[in-house]
């Protein structure tokens, strides 16, 4: 194979995480000589999606090789006992995402994927219903024989979040007073930016306090609104100023790409697909890609030529470049951390994926939220800590996502509760979800992986001496794609090309576009 030794570059991008790959895409027509390397044998870094076998290998090695992930472990339950007959398909039938996230319709990432034309290479699917777990509903549900309308919005202890005004009106669980309070809030949030006087004083207060005091939204309705924020923090720590823009984003996104849904995800592996098309665009523009190639540590040193820096690669090769862009500006992960678990389930869990609306695409996934405090780890927990445990979020991916075979589904669970207690909380939530779905045979976990996922405490891009060494902060752990990643990419892009901002990721089609989309 060719060697990289003694080669000279304009830009060397280290790592193929989403941010670095979007930078590669942004630079793909710049005429710069670009080398894009990754020490892994796969693309995507923390946003990768791997087959089952690869994910198991990843779990074995990730603890030593990464500051981002830790405590990874795979569990394969004894299936012979369950006798469900369902078993894992071939490892290649799966595509396991390490940082699954929703993309809201108004996200600038989608706009840039369109303006850069790479969206044609991606297939986007609708994120379906949001569900909220309630520890109180099971008895009530059994006592009153539920009507059909009720049944469709209730599944065991899971309640479907109304997806719009009509849903609220048709809801038969809510009483009139509650509906009125909710409608009043929905009218407010449509234009909350223009009515700062309504919430200014509550800015730092918990969102739930604001809902109670300002709109008299009953406690039972606060959980679904909080669920829409996707806040990783407990109820008491989720402030009004954090929650309002997020609830507004959710509601304003509904209908942008079609009725009944507000967020999308890329088929076949979410952000890892975005990474793939971004890197391929850079390759088409002449960028050189080398996997299994990392920087040695320390790998960056000054060069005799003051405009250049010298990089030493792990296999001893030395290259020089005008710019180096890496990711992760802290040696170990900052305080921002999630416990995650991934569970392959022996059922499509179709009940969680009801049709969204007429003419709407069929939903590929659902979001299940276990509110703060709804799953007590131990009875004494509440007493000991005073504070409620943080919520658990589970993204339910059907086989439509291309991430698992038909007849199965994948549960991506996460919580901000750290360590073993976090993992315990996640497995409680997974069990509670599976037992809420009344199916025969009951859905079973076929395979699972858990790990802790860290991020940087500051999201600033760090510029180190020599000045042409830039380090992106690791992407946030937000379950909805955080557009600040694009601001960072744009900033680095601008430093490198020195161009005006309106040219960022705006490209013509490279290839003739035939009759698109019948």
């Amino acid at each position, binding site marked *: 194979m060719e060697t990289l030794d003694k080669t000279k570059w304009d830009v060397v991008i280290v790592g193929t995480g989403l941010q670095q790959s979007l930078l590669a895409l942004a630079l793909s027509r710049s005429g710069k000589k670009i080398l894009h390397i990754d020490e892994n044998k796969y693309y995507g870094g923390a946003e990768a999606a791997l087959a089952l076998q690869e994910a198991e290998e990843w779990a074995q090695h990730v603890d030593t090789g990464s500051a981002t992930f830790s405590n990874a472990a795979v569990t394969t339950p004894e299936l012979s006992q369950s006798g469900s007959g369902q078993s894992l398909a071939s490892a*290649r039938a799966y595509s396991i995402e390490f940082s699954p996230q929703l993309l809201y319709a108004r996200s600038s990432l989608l706009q840039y994927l369109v303006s850069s034309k790479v969206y044609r290479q991606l297939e986007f699917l609708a994120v379906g219903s949001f569900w909220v777990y309630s520890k109180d509903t099971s008895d009530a549900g059994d006592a009153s024989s539920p009507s059909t309308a009720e049944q469709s919005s209730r599944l065991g202890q899971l309640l479907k979040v109304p997806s719009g005004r009509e849903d609220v009106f048709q809801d038969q669980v809510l009483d009139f007073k509650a509906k009125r309070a909710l409608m009043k809030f929905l009218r407010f949030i449509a234009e909350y930016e223009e009515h700062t006087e309504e919430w200014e004083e509550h800015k730092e207060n918990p969102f739930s306090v604001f809902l109670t005091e300002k709109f008299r939204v009953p406690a039972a309705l606060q959980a679904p609104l909080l669920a829409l924020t996707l806040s990783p923090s407990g109820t008491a720590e989720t402030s009004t100023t954090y929650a309002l823009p997020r609830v507004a984003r959710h509601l304003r996104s509904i*209908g942008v790409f079609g009725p009944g849904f507000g967020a999308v995800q890329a088929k*076949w592996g979410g952000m890892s697909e975005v990474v793939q098309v971004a890197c391929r*665009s850079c390759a088409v523009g002449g960028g050189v890609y080398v996997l299994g190639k990392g920087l040695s540590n320390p790998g960056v040193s000054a060069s005799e030529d003051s405009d250049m820096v010298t990089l030493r690669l792990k296999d001893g090769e030395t290259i020089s470049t005008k710019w180096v862009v890496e990711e992760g500006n802290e040696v170990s992960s900052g305080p921002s951390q999630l416990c995650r678990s991934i569970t392959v389930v022996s059922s499509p869990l179709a009940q969680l994926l009801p049709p969204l609306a007429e003419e709407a*695409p069929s939903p590929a996934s659902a979001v299940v939220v276990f509110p703060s405090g709804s799953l007590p780890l131990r009875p004494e927990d509440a007493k000991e800590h005073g504070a409620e445990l943080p919520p658990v979020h589970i993204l339910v991916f059907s086989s439509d996502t291309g991430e698992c075979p038909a007849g199965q589904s994948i549960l991506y669970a996460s919580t901000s509760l750290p360590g073993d207690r976090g993992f315990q909380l996640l497995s409680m939530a997974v069990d509670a979800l599976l037992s809420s779905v009344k199916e025969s045979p009951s859905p079973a976990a076929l395979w699972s992986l858990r790990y802790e996922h860290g991020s940087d405490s500051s999201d600033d891009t760090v510029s180190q001496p020599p000045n042409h060494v830039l380090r992106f902060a690791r992407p946030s752990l937000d379950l909805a794609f955080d557009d600040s990643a694009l601001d960072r990419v744009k900033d680095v892009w601008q430093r490198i090309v020195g161009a005006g901002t309106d040219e960022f990721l705006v490209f013509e089609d490279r290839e003739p576009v035939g009759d698109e989309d019948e």
Partner: protein
Amino acid sequence: MADSGAAAPKPSSSVKLVLLGEAAVGKSSLVMRFVNNDFQENKEPTIGAAFLTQKCNLPTRTIKFEIWDTAGQERFASLAPMYYRNAQAALVVYDITKPSSLTKAQHWVAELHRQASPGIVIALVGNKADLAAEAAAGDELGDDATEDTDAAPGAEGEEDADADNADQRRVATKTAKAYAEEEGLLFFETSAKTGKNVAEVFTAIANAIPEASLKGPRGAAGGQSSLGRQEDARVNLGSVRPEGAKEGCAC
């Protein structure tokens, strides 16, 4: 045949097709010929398309190929398995004037068997057939015409004493065809330059894609991964309604 003209309302499905093969065997040229009916002499490496689409109309259905070129990422062996993981078809290309390119093609076939979807349709394609002797090029796929080359023992890679400029063939049709049959691959010799057999390859692939794998995943029986593109689940980002959100939103 490949044709992007208006089609009768037939069932239509998308098929992801990946291109594989050594650098400079003419992968991109084959696709350019298929999609644009165009050929560029001395095309620069890696330039071109990473992604092209072209429809193929069959009597009972329309197949829309989504063709993924390697974009030059094969150079440092930096094509990761995700490139072909969800592909339903692969075109593995070698150069009939370069025996080492067939070896590389065989490597890719093995890699596909190991890493790609179990039901993937693979076509082995010997490109640059225009560089073979006149007699061979004009005939049907190397049945008799290339008998001479085939007969020469160890013709592969050997220096042909009688090689004049007219015949640069170094890979016997029979050799490659026997290998393709053994591995269950479709086999063609093509010329992106003249257009010979190019459309035929794609039509053959389209015909070989099992109808069952084109159904939506939920329609398919459980267990196996189904690769069919489910058009009713697809969200079209091009259809954004700039003012639409106001109406659709819950406020």
